């Protein structure tokens, strides 16, 4: 079975400071990992994904994420947060070894609040 944990319900950061949103996963095989962001009254917007290769993945809006196989983590990072980054962030995993047909397993979400 696959699962995703986002240990923080909310992350508060001042504008201009680094932002990190944590995610750990559990899969039976090798994972495909994704980050999505949700703004109020909007759908989930894709930020970035890890499939294979370089452990540091760069995505939209200046976000990046680091895949760490030994720690089964895929933390989302941004070097300098903006007020407009305030949103709900979801980590998701797809287990490519589990015979799944594209099913994404989502974490509970982390609310990011960036203050001016």
């Amino acid at each position, binding site marked *: 079975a696959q699962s995703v944990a986002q240990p923080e319900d909310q992350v508060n950061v001042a504008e201009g400071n680094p932002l990190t949103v944590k995610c750990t996963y559990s899969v039976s095989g090798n994972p495909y990992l994704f980050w*999505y962001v949700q703004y109020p009254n*909007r759908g*989930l917007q*894709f930020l970035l994904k890890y499939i294979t290769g370089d452990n540091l993945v760069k995505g939209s809006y200046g976000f990046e994420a680091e895949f760490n196989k030994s720690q089964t983590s895929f933390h989302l990072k941004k070097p300098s947060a903006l007020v407009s980054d305030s949103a709900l962030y979801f980590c998701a995993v797809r287990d490519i070894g589990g015979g799944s047909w594209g099913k994404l397993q989502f974490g509970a979400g982390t609310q990011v609040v960036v203050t001016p």
Partner: protein
Amino acid sequence: EPEVTQTPSHQVTQMGQEVILRCVPISNHLYFYWYRQILGQKVEFLVSFYNNEISEKSEIFDDQFSVERPDGSNFTLKIRSTKLEDSAMYFCASSRPSGESYNEQFFGPGTRLTVL
């Protein structure tokens, strides 16, 4: 930029009534999904659909649920006899065709279903 669209944005219905939620996926996509998010809970996978048939479904997707692609553009989720616990935000998603199985899914803005 093409988007997944969903209608209606909000649906209110009486318990026991049938509802149909509609989605228009991105035009060249061939894989379609429904997810739901009960207020305050995780985004949960319901069903995936490819080549005019269900490819995977969750335990949530019981006989009360059905999906259909009635024409070349729409993708619908029908709940035959709604229950109070069906109240949730329902998200449609689609992903583009390719030989790879790791393409990101593009989500619509969601339909908020309220069952009274």
